[in-house]
């Protein structure tokens, strides 16, 4: 092994990814070559330095993620009534830390279960029964593919402008039982939010969807419309009411992006009740950016 070969294999050596024979050659050369030993030391020092920039996610984030996942899965269950008992089974595996979050998830579930049944009865677009839609997917070239089970699998494909595709996307964004499908639908509708009915559907997803992921996607889709009154009002309500701190934080960012002075009142109002430490920090920072006081609280 020569110097160049050694230096191109330093990672493999440090990470213990060499076979016995290669490692042997590496060490023989290193033991005889001052320059290469220096290179190895430098490499180790660099990796140590980078290691210090590594961060551990806050424990609360893991709990939030788990609660969110439970909620999404519960919401996607075909028979929401049975989830109450089945959800209890999640507790032992994830331990006591997750309990308060689960209580919230159960409350939300109880609330949404009623709503969902009501919605699913109406509004199925002509010729397309959502219960039979297996997947909705963008194919990347402005086309959308919908796979139906009826009972044999059938695939329909069409452009975003296609009236049937559009209907399917609007319906799915609102009421597909699978949150993944709702995410995909919102994502496919996002560039067309300048149309009233589509923006309304995305706003509805932002304010009403039970999955925080879907709400985050909807929020993101509305980004270009953050100046519009209707959108700003919805975002203010989200900031005041959404159960997910992630969604609340994103709402702050988006509201602050345009006319930050307009939302001082909302921020002052919200911070009185805000319990999440991180969201509080973000609100305080937002207020200080517009040089407003947090108000009396």
């Amino acid at each position: 092994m020569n110097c160049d070969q050694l230096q191109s294999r330093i990672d493999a050596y440090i990470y213990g990814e060499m076979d016995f024979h290669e490692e042997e050659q590496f060490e023989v050369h290193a033991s005889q070559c001052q320059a290469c030993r220096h290179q190895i030391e430098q490499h180790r020092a660099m990796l140590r330095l980078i290691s210090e920039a590594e961060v551990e996610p806050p424990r609360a984030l893991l709990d939030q993620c788990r609660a969110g996942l439970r909620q999404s899965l519960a919401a996607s269950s075909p028979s929401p009534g049975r989830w109450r008992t089945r959800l209890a089974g999640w507790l032992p595996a994830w331990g006591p830390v997750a309990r308060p979050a689960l209580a919230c998830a159960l409350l939300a579930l109880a609330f949404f279960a009623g709503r969902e049944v009501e919605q699913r009865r109406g509004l199925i677009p002509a010729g397309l029964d959502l219960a039979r839609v297996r997947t909705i997917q963008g194919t990347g070239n402005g086309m959308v593919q919908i796979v139906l089970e009826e009972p044999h699998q059938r695939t329909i494909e069409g452009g975003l402008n296609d009236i049937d595709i559009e209907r399917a996307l609007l319906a799915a964004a609102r009421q597909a039982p699978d949150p993944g499908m709702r995410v995909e639908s919102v994502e496919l509708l996002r560039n067309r939010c300048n149309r009233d009915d589509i923006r309304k559907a995305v706003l509805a997803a932002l304010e009403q969807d039970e999955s925080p992921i879907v709400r985050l996607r909807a929020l993101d889709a509305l980004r270009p419309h953050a100046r519009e009154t209707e959108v700003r009002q919805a975002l203010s309500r989200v900031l005041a009411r959404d159960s997910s701190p992630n969604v609340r934080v994103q709402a702050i960012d988006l509201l602050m992006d345009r006319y930050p002075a307009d939302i001082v009142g909302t921020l002052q109002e919200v911070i009185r009740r805000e319990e999440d430490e991180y969201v509080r920090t973000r609100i305080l920072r937002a207020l200080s950016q517009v040089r407003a006081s947090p108000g009396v609280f």
Partner: protein
Amino acid sequence: MDEAALIRAAQAGDQQAFASLVAGYDQQVLRLAYNLLRSPEEAADIYQEAFLRVHRNLAKFRFDCSFHTWLYRIVTNLCLDALRKKKVRKEEPAVVETSDGPRDRLETAPEQRADLDPQRKLLSRELRERIEAVLAGLTPRERLVFEMRHFEGMRLRAIGDSLGTTEEAAKNCLFRATQKMRAALGDFL
């Protein structure tokens, strides 16, 4: 219950088995996403999306690779997508319209979340910025391979498997990443 039994139970619809399966990997997945994206919101997105996909597709898991590899195929795809999107966003024009006229994007961008990471306070601000810059300068693949090898301790072969490539390709990718880092951090060593 061993993992294979857990997977079979989860495939049969046992939600508690699914929860146990998730709990065995989710901390690792979240840490990877959090470190790659440096944003709690984006990390949470990846977490949700990854395990929802696992849930949706678990029935199709045929035990022809390890569950870890199968899971990481999903996770690495999501991470690469998110990193690519982040890169595109970074390349947006530097000047934005605000209510007080055009301003530099940096001024209007929400502050970086350094305050979330108390450990990083140990590093000098200059060094921290330099490290952030070098990590951001890696390609999404280089970034991901480095993160998985250096921080997650995954073997290069497993990394290659989850990226649908060879161990050799993963090794080369890692090498390019650490070369860039050496070049960028040379004067701190």
